């Protein structure tokens, strides 16, 4: 019994302890002029969808729910955001060369088509980030049109 208590205590101390390790928050007040929404004429419904479903990991500003401020969940999320921004950062869209824009749009289409994005682990909690079949089609049609216009 003593051992169990000790383990519980250690776990508790560790849990509280890791809360004090600072995490870099992916948050920014300003939207740079290179942002995808600012340089493309994006219809409002698609803007909203991209914002909710993509921007948390693919921009400089994540909308954090409370549980994502708790460690170790926050670490896990930070890792995703970091990797996500590396692959595609909508805020930096216009700094990409047209070659890169084209290739990014192609990847966006294929990731959405194959249901690989938004990530399952993300939509599990963020239910509003899911794309219904109809939403998928609307977004895909629009992104394809943008790609063809480049």
């Amino acid at each position, binding site marked *: 019994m003593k*051992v169990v208590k000790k383990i519980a205590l*250690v776990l508790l101390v*560790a849990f509280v302890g*890791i809360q004090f390790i600072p995490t870099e928050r992916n948050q920014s007040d300003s939207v740079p002029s290179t942002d995808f929404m600012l340089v493309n004429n994006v219809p409002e419904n698609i803007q909203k969808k991209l914002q909710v479903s993509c921007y948390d990991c693919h921009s400089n500003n994540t909308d954090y729910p409370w549980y994502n401020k708790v460690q*170790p969940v926050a*670490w*896990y999320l930070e890792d995703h955001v970091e990797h996500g921004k590396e692959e595609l950062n909508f805020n930096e869209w216009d700094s990409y060369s047209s*070659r890169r824009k084209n290739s990014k749009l192609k990847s966006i289409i294929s990731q959405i088509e194959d249901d*690989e994005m938004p990530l399952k682990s993300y939509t599990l909690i963020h239910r509003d980030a899911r794309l219904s079949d109809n939403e998928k089609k609307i977004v895909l049609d629009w992104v394809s049109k943008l790609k063809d216009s480049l």
Partner: protein
Amino acid sequence: MKNLKVTTVILAMAFIGLTAISCKDAKKENTNEEGSQMEASHDNSDGHHDKEAMHDNSDGHHDEDSDSSTDHTRDIEANTQKNTATTPIIDAYIQIKNALTTDNKNEAAKGGTALVAAFSKFDMSNLTGETHKEYMEILESAKEHAEHIVKSPIDHQREHFEVLSTDINDLVALLGTEKTLYQDSCPMANNGKGAIWLSEVEEIKNPYMGIKMPTCGTIQKQIN
């Protein structure tokens, strides 16, 4: 003894913590069955349609119809400079291409690593102005696709190979090569929108369809 247990627990905690940090979403290794459907709808009965595009290449001139799949592609014959500096890049690209023709994911990944290495060794000190700018754009894109080819399942490798092929094609057009290359085209790749690839051999070996349909495609151009 008690101390030992406590230490063990702390170590275990640290381990779990680190695992959580480094944990990445495992990418789905879904096998792509699309190819089999497409095969059924494709008339490949003669098995020699790839030869139709063959011409007497001795004069280096070709009069193939322009194709829709290469809208964004530079004319591969734009530069006839016999450049040896691009050879390691092209060789690594060919390594990926050949691996994909035999559905070999691991070899393709090795080719991706070789391509990244070839790009970082490339000496761009004598590139200037527009050429340098365009090279940098190609480099950025091609490296990104090579990196994805290293870590992706084969259907994704092929998607990245589509864009990579355009990049390498443009690189050859921009800087030239000493090698003899064929620009081949597969109308069924890229979800039926078509895609090109470069080959070092005249014979068609399709990297997009792999062993399911190795001879699908036509030669569009020859360089050198």
